[in-house]
């Protein structure tokens, strides 16, 4: 075998090994960035994706749509973790079904999903898609324990020319506060795994946020009137509590 052939053979082996290692790393990375319960990406992958989009092109209009599974704690307590997990999986599958190609879905906390949509051309389209996804997600889930009601809240954040992606990151943090406050110590067997996947350093302590909000008087109350539609008058008021961080994010 000539020297050239030996060099070529060696190069081929190195290339093959490099490809094999690359595939393994990609597989491991995919596994590490995928939530085992729902198949969605993890919070860490979600933040990583946002950061990479920010680096790639600040002019790319990006939307992040949050879907929160409400009352998951109650479902967990009534029916057990297995049924609560079924609800989470169903919601994830339903959201994925209507997800466009330029979007990714992540499970960013025990009971909340976030969808990143890139190259947004119309904010109205995103809003319309959000309504359709939410309407599908809130259909009752039929489980071995019978029908389980599902409620899903949604909200949207858009990047903008002035602030770039900062609003998206601020909203991501605020959502983690709220979601973890509402569902503390809930969810599935994979919760510990999820926390590990996400990296505890990325999470904020919800109790600290709430304590700080109370101490700093950044808890605000909104009022929603209850009407009597026969007399067409306000008969009482309902209250909605909002917890803000120091920057005013909710």
């Amino acid at each position, binding site marked *: 075998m000539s020297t050239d052939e030996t060099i070529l053979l060696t190069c081929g082996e190195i290339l093959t090994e490099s490809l094999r290692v690359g595939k393994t790393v990609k597989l491991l990375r995919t596994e590490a960035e995928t939530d085992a319960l729902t198949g969605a990406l993890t919070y860490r992958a979600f933040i990583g994706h946002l950061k990479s989009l920010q680096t790639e092109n600040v002019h790319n209009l990006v939307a992040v749509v949050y879907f929160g599974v409400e009352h998951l704690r109650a479902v967990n307590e009534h029916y057990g973790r297995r049924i609560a997990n079924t609800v989470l999986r169903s919601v994830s599958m339903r959201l994925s079904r209507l997800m466009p190609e330029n979007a990714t879905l992540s499970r960013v906390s025990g009971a909340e999903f976030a969808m990143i949509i890139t190259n947004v051309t119309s904010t109205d389209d995103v809003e319309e898609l959000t309504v359709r996804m939410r309407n599908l997600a809130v259909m009752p889930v039929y489980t071995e324990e019978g029908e389980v009601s599902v*409620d899903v809240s949604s909200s949207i954040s858009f990047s903008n020319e002035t602030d770039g992606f900062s609003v998206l990151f601020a909203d991501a943090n605020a959502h983690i506060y709220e979601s973890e406050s509402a569902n503390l110590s809930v969810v599935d067997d994979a919760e510990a795994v999820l926390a590990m996947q996400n990296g505890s350093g990325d999470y904020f302590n919800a109790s600290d946020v709430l304590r700080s909000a*109370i101490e700093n008087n950044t808890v605000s109350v*909104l009022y929603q009137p209850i009407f009597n539609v026969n007399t067409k008058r306000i008969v*009482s008021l309902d*209250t909605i509590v909002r917890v803000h961080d120091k920057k005013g994010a909710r």
Partner: protein
Amino acid sequence: MAEAYRLGMSAQLTLDVLDTCVKDMTDFRKVAPELDIVGIYMNGSELTNSRFHERLEQLTHEQPHLRFGLQMGSHAIHVLHDEADDEVTDLAALPNVKLGLIHAGTTYSEIAAFARLPLDFAQFDETMVREFRVPRAMQIMQHALNISRDNGAYQVVFNGVETPEQVDFIRSIGGSLVEGTLLCNAMSANEFLMRLETMGTVLPDAALPQAEQA
């Protein structure tokens, strides 16, 4: 320990909300004296908290015209457990306190609480109102209203009303108390005060255009 701290903090949060409501309602009532009841969400821990009980009792003297609708979700009812029912019943005996069940109609609501606690109102969950065309949801809401009318024991509120069709349905089954974005968005105290000063407590006809035509 951490959990106890968290629960203590939750009671503090409700106390803060209660005091904010008292202050804001005092302002609202200067413009609309007929407004006398405000609903406050209970997280459960405050219902067995002595400071919360004392504060509500104190308010019966300080603000005798104000009433507070304490809204109980499944979490609050779970936190309470059976042994705390007496404490909550004492609380409900205060003249300024009304107890109510929220998220009614869902599989996570605690309809059994009606057997345990002196509830004054039930608030149908927005998911039920959204599904008003589904026969099962329709029947549940209809029957709940029938029972409330027969006994006169509790009021029924429909939460999350977003369309005139939902209002039509609620009227058709004899319901009248509704809240939702169709009629009015949630707003800050200042915004609500401004609304009261300009429109009073009246619901403008424009808020129910299609329902009026039906």
